[in-house]
């Protein structure tokens, strides 16, 4: 299919990661009583952000190698494995 799934995954996790990092850095710290005093929003948000960026890079790179892979309806892209 023309849309590489890694692009939406990467974008979604980057956005969620950024939101959590932002909230963890600037939001009220009282909420972390629940999470054993750890600012998990900041830490886990950063992990998700990194994951999202890696997916974006992988998705974009494979699009650059096969710019039209799968774009033609008859599946004209190389029959290769990714």
């Amino acid at each position, binding site marked *: 299919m023309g849309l590489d799934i890694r692009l939406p*995954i990467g974008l979604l996790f980057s956005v969620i990661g950024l939101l959590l990092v932002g909230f963890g850095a600037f939001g009220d710290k009282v909420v972390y009583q629940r999470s054993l005093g750890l600012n*998990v*929003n900041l830490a886990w948000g950063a992990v998700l952000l990194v*994951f999202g960026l890696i997916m974006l890079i992988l998705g974009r790179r494979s699009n650059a190698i096969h710019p039209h892979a799968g774009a033609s309806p008859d*599946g004209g892209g190389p029959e290769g494995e990714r």
Partner: protein
Amino acid sequence: MSLTSIDWVIMAVYSVFVLGIGVALKRYMKTSTDFFLAGRSIPAWVCGLAFISANLGAQEVIGMGASGAKYGIATSHFYWIGAIPAMVFVGIFMMPFYYGSRARSVPEYLRLRFDEKTRGLNAISFATMTIFSSGISVYAMAKLMQTLHILDSPLRRMGLPLSAGFHISIVISAIVVLVYILLGGLVSAIYNEVLQFFLIVAGFLPLVLLGLKDVGGWSGIKQQLPTAYTHSWQGMSNPHTNPLGVEWFGLVMGLGFVSSFGYWCTDFLVVQRAMAAESMSAARRTPLIASIPKMVFPFLVVLPGLIAISLPAQRASLLPSAHGTDTMKGETAVTGQGLIPPKINETTGLPMLDANGRPLLDYDLAVPNMLVHYLPTGLLGLGITALLASFMSGMAGNVTAFNTVWTYDIYQAYIHKGASDQHYLWVGRMATVFGIALSVAAAYAATHFNNIMDFLQLVFAFVNAPLFATFLLGMFWKRTTGHAAFAGLLSGTVAAAVHHGLTLPVGAVAGIKGGWLATVHVYPSEMAQNFWTAIWAWSVCMVVTVLVSLVTQPRKEEELVGLVYSLTPRISEGQLPWYKRPEALAILVVVLVLILNIIFW
């Protein structure tokens, strides 16, 4: 529980992405193959993640957490024995026929291999079953939204009654699923399943890590709980010495062989994900790739239940018991265990006690309570989004399987043959609308007649139990005939019903739990009874199919090429690097799962 704006923003971002994926895929949906089979163009790792996510509905996430709290680490058997061997088998031995025969669905394979009536039987029972499972998924989600009180504060602000939350959750999720499947068909469903996979990991991993830190790691859990909870095999020689109440033979044969192979190897809901793969080798690798995350999933879904029950003292439940109302706030006299509150009797509002006067625990609240207990606002929104995602893809998975079977195996086969491809594409879209409407109706039926849902699930268990015997014989014994397959399936289903009617789990009354004919045997647990029902159904189907095959006329061998093992040329994959060869992956998977079993012996 109160969600703040950051939680709502995360949920909103997710919904935008789900719908956006559908919109982005719309222009690729040109033929019915694009819509129903994703144009057979999906890479193996994407199919693999969709393969396990399609099965990982939120009922499973909640249910496995509940079982983790109730039975301990032995719950992992549902993964390590109850899934991995079957997934390896379907990838190595069965996928060559499913994918290679170019059948578009599992019932269509049955028609190619056997005959029209065997396909019809399978297609109709499967289509009915998907509607009801999808309905149960919707119902469970709306119920969870109520239990977690997620919609309470927005509803109050809008001046609506709190009970409206149930209907709002059903309608919104149905609309979201409808839109993205209508737009992007199976690709949309698969892509969303992959998103859901990553969301479940992202939402539950911090929960497990925080919980483990709180209880002092695995050794902390071991100190708090009896040894039976932290060992998966000890005590399995006798049903009375392990929490599952099953002996090893019933476990391995009933769960590990009949039920699990029956599900993973023949259920079109999962097999459809592999059929969408871009090549034969990708289709064969799909279940093998899926089995690697599958085997570590117990740490994500079973462990939260174990953590919830091993917290040293009863902690205040942040959620009232599932059936309880807000009146139970003062009821702390009868305590639960860890994070698990006692079950509340719906009519009296008092905690329910067992025969020894100890409170019955509401295990289904283990995971929801864990989420609320450990996740701060922000991550909580992510955790709820993960649950929502898995409910929606549970529904979407069923609906995409339904629209395919309906269009190809019922509509094209019996109602309107020989129409144009565009017509079938249109019928598939209509079937999506119709399937979702029926699921919503089934969800409402469940609110009124809970017993009817239990009853239907039982009937489907009877229908499914013998199926694997039919496929096994059909694929590996060329002598098997269509009449035999049909007779075997019917008699296997009857055998399951009769076995259920003649046995009872200990402590149950005759009725929906069994014994409705007479009680000739009492099983130590319901699980043991279920496993043995499956074993009987499978064995009867096997014997009847073999006997009838021997007295009926087999098909000509040349008609069976590509459908039966002995008549199909072996696939050579020698040119691929080892990590892309299904056989090498299979060995790796088996070794890894053995290691896990030894560690948690």
